[in-house]
């Protein structure tokens, strides 16, 4: 099993400019990848032994003053090599779609639905991209920095799940 640095080196020279930077804040390995090649990097890492996709975290960097506003963080873990790696993607506000990875890992299915529900990332190819936490009549995306914290929205009824059966 290769160790973490050699895998990062391998990803760097294989994908070249797609890998923007790789640093180690507080000791965690983080790889920042360009949006265009995110799916290839992730499937490559999947073959490298990162069989756990622990979490997909969306971040709205409105006040952090970064190059792009949004950011999606894939949190990977390799069971055999006991290695943790975070792959970050910067997503501009205008173009929010990303390729889905729900066919690589089963856990991505709901993680992407939550990122869509909370931030509005559109994951192309996701079998059933609908809201998961807020109710289906919710307008807007709750965890964006410009969404007022106190703006509650009433739900008039419960959602009909029959179309969900076929899509999933």
């Amino acid at each position, binding site marked *: 099993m290769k160790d973490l640095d050699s895998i990062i080196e391998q990803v760097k020279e294989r994908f070249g400019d797609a890998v923007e930077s790789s640093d180690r804040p507080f000791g965690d390995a983080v790889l920042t990848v360009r949006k265009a090649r995110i799916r290839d990097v992730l499937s490559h890492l999947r073959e490298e032994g990162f069989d756990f996709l622990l979490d997909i975290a969306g971040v709205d960097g409105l006040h952090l003053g970064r190059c792009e506003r949004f950011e999606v963080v894939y949190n990977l873990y390799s069971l055999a090599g006991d290695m943790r790696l975070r792959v970050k993607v910067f997503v501009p506000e205008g173009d929010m779609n990303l390729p889905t990875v729900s066919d690589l890992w089963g856990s991505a299915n709901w993680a992407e639905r939550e990122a869509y529900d909370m931030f509005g990332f559109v994951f192309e190819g996701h079998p059933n991209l609908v809201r998961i936490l*807020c*109710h289906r009549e*919710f307008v807007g995306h*709750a965890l964006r920095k410009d*969404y*007022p*914290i*106190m*703006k*509650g*929205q*009433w*739900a*008039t*009824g*419960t959602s009909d799940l029959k179309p969900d059966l076929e899509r999933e």
Partner: protein
Amino acid sequence: MGVEGIPVTKHETGFITTRLDEVIRWGRKNSLWPLPYATACCGIEYMAALSSIFDIARFGAELVRFSPRQSDLIIVAGTINYKIGPVLKRIYDQMCEPKYVISMGACACSGGFYDNYATIQGIDQIIPVDVFIPGCPPRPDAMINAVVKIQEKIDTEPQRGPRRPERERERSR
């Protein structure tokens, strides 16, 4: 027949006479079947209240029914957010009269410390509530005290005929 709390007149031949209302009140008071609307942490404290140490069975409220048709006391234990609001409203509507509501815990009473876009700030915005229990989560004895308060409320109400017609001001959204 030593059933305390019921005004009875004893006759030498051993049978008693009492008003029908009193018997109905005694029956209802001591067999409140709760519908545990336990969504969050208060649900665990509600389970503790059901367990044999705090033992809510002493007050007759132990038989937990999950269908609104068979329950006459709904205990909302936990946070009610905008997604489950319509469900709670429908369950309350489908309960048969006479029905009582206990709002258990700060989240149910006033939204607790979740004052944000997701939580309904108090279930009395959607259903009329009889007894509020403060606390996050309230101790099981506070839960039992609420059931006793409901029983006292039953004591002071007419048991037959239209009940609280004016109270049914349902601000359904």
